[in-house]
């Protein structure tokens, strides 16, 4: 069969981070190639290069035998590449038909011919066997249907190569199964499909070939027949430990954080933490290992009382934390390094000093009653900038002007400079440079040694393995296993993360 896409020796780095290193791949007509890898393995960068959104440093990309000018999205589209983004590019208040024709509307006398458009939409949906209601408004549709519209939109432009960036991340299991069926049908019609995912089950179910990326490198190409889920998991996570953290033996004491039968739903009202129970002791780091999107975010937000609990309890030092009251959780002794520092952790237009007191600006010594004590805020800012090695000329600079690593240090400084009982650290080193990673890791260990119960949630298995004293594996909203870190085996954890019984 004809080769649609040839990637030859593509490399791309962002600053000192190598996203892609000498990657060569092909996709043929009617073939489904699954691009498998952990977060940060370089999958998105690679497909963005194919679509012309990212300019590779070296290497060539050929579509239908023609070398593509790098960074030219229009040319990629013209030669038949379609991309379904993780975040849909649809107009929510318009109908399915209107969305499908947007940008290339059938016209009569200069006016959009909506009857014709509707006919085209129906014909398109029939041709590919993708059933949609042409008159439905996008915002009324379930996510799976909206995604179908997104796919149809790409197909309308006579797509030969369809790229899907983690299409199942937003879907329910049923919707996922339907999507996989759709992909199989498209492949039968000769469309080449490049499908990004980190879910092994999907790969085994649908792919003709599987390419595994790890740390920006292509680890190998295989097929579902030659491979197995456990082999794939090993390829995905089997890298050597890059970061070694010096730490002494943990001396766990009494239980400080206890989670009992917790149930939480996500933004789409689907239950994503399912009857989860967990205990974290003073003086230990409990790492939660898991593929992203398995309930970690909801778990963290429920512990910190930022997200409503359906049922269950969060108990800190024997005291129950009320629902939906972040202030109460904070006062009870929960420090929270949030997953998204720009969204939750910082007010970027505030000074570093103000950010360093963001959740205790109204407590002594930073306020006397109703009046803020700006001198205390300033001197606290100066001393934390010094102590936590925040690289800024002074504490009055706006936090938004700092680098990612230093922004994160501001959050870490604020959260770890107070009374330490329970520390919840969610992806504490995401998007942070190596130097800051080391610093933050050492701070978390120092918090542990000072007697805090540390709950570490990270999508980086390496981070969990090097920091945690105990490791709990989360999959589909449940803790499926707990290991002492000495007994932990990377492959076993990888398999459990992927939702396989060990």
């Amino acid at each position, binding site marked *: 069969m004809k080769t649609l896409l040839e990637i030859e020796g593509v490399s791309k780095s962002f600053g000192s981070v190598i996203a892609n290193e000498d990657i060569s791949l092909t996709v043929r007509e009617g073939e489904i190639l699954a691009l498998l890898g952990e977060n940060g393995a370089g999958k998105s960068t690679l497909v963005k290069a194919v679509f012309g959104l990212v300019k590779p440093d070296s290497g060539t990309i050929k579509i239908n035998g023609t070398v593509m000018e790098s960074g030219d999205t229009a040319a990629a589209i013209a030669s038949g590449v379609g991309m379904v983004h993780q975040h849909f590019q649809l107009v929510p208040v318009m109908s399915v038909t209107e969305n499908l024709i947007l940008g290339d509307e059938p016209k009569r006398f200069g006016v959009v011919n909506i009857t014709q458009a509707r006919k085209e939409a129906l014909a398109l949906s029939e041709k590919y066997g993708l059933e949609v209601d042409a008159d439905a408004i996008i915002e009324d549709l379930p996510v799976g249907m909206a995604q179908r519209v997104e796919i149809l939109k790409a197909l309308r432009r006579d797509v030969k190569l369809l790229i899907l960036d983690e299409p199942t991340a937003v879907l329910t299991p049923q919707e996922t199964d339907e999507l996989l069926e759709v992909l199989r049908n498209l492949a039968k019609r000769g469309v080449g499909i490049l499908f990004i995912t980190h879910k092994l089950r999907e790969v085994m179910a649908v792919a003709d070939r599987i390419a595994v990326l790890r740390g920006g490198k292509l680890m190998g190409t295989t097929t579902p027949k030659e491979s197995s889920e456990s082999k794939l998991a090993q390829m995905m996570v089997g890298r050597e430990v890059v970061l070694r953290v010096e730490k002494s033996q943990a001396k766990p004491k009494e239980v400080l954080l206890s989670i009992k039968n917790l149930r939480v739903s996500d933004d789409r009202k689907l239950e994503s933490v399912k009857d989860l129970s967990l205990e974290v002791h003073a003086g230990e780091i409990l790492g939660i290992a898991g593929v992203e999107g398995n309930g970690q975010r909801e778990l963290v937000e429920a512990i910190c009382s930022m997200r409503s609990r359906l049922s269950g309890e969060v108990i800190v030092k024997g005291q129950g934390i009320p629902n939906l009251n972040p202030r109460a959780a904070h006062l009870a002794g929960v420090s929270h390094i949030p997953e998204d520092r720009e969204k939750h952790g*910082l*007010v970027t237009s505030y000074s570093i*000093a103000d950010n360093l007191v963001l*959740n205790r600006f109204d407590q002594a010594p930073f306020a006397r009653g109703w009046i803020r004590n700006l001198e205390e805020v300033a001197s606290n800012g100066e001393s934390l900038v010094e102590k936590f090695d925040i690289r800024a000329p002074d504490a009055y600079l706006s936090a938004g002007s700092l680098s990612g690593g230093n922004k994160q240090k501001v959050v870490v400084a604020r959260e770890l400079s107070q009374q330490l009982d329970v520390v919840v650290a969610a992806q504490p080193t995401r998007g942070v440079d190596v130097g800051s990673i080391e610093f933050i890791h050492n701070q978390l260990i120092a918090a542990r040694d000072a007697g805090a119960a540390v709950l570490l949630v990270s999508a980086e298995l390496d981070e969990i393995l090097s920091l945690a004293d105990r490791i709990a594996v989360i999959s589909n909203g449940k803790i499926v296993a707990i290991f002492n870190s000495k007994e932990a085996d990377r492959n076993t954890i990888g398999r459990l993360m992927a939702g396989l019984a060990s």
Partner: protein
Amino acid sequence: MDAKQSKKLDFSPILVPLLSIVVALAFGGILIFIQGINPLLAYRVLFTTAFGSFDGIAITLAKATPLILSGLAVAICLRAGLFNIGAQGQLISGALASAWAGYTFVGLPALVHIPLALIFGAFFGALVALVAAVLKAYRGVHEVITTIMLNSIVIALSDYLTSNPFKEPDQPLTRTPKIQDSAQMPDLLGLPLGFFLAIGLSITLWWIMRNTTTGFSIETIGRNKNAGWYAGISVKKTIMLSMLIGGAVAGVAGAVETLSIIGRFEPAFNAGLGFDGITVALLGRANPLGVIPAAILIGGMRASGSTVQFEAGVAPELVDLLLAMILFFVTAPLLARFFKNRKENVAMTSGWSN
């Protein structure tokens, strides 16, 4: 407010409004020129009438008084990330309530009657804002929609009340009776007392925003609601509070107009004061002190509009035109971005997206 501003001086909060005014005057000048009139003459008349004599300044400041207050009402909400288009309705509600208190209570000393009537104004201004505040905080209804709707409701309701239960008896006009002498706000140093009240409120609110935990809460919610929630600030409470402060201040604006200028409530007399407040607040960069010069400028233009027509032959709509252009340029993001080298996430830009 920041704990301490970065030591580097940042002129953009002053530069952008000033430039907007200059550009608006330039465009206005072209339009005047097209009419065959010397724009410099027109502007000189405008300026000397408004600021050229003590009497002129007194009139300008009297005109500026309700604008400072209505500008403050909009500004304080902008700081919380809320766009209060409803200052007009809140102001009318306050004007009518204070008029009622002004003519109904008889035999009170001025020292009691005036504050009482002002409190009536503040309370009923806040009451109108409360509707929008509750809908926003608890139901997520966008405040721009609700405050616009409430403007219409309040205007219709005040028309009804003034032509029926609160109507001055035995005469044809739709208006309330005149307020008692004891409710009449006096002048101080040749300036209306309300002017000093407005300045006092501006300074107080500026101080609250800068130095109190309440101010920090409002500012934080305005800049990053999610971070505020994370930090344990009650988003609902903060929305309610800032809307209520805004409504009360707008109510006081109406009350001051009633008690010191008009002396009663007449429906058409307060037209536009609340809407000018939006221009004032934006020109003043949503800063409680910044609204003072902005209001004085606009007050001066309002005060001299008819003189410009008389002496230079320019249509009085010139003032509206200039104000509209100032508003346009001050909000034009292009201009703002040009002068902002650092990304300054001012609260006023977040009003629409949440």
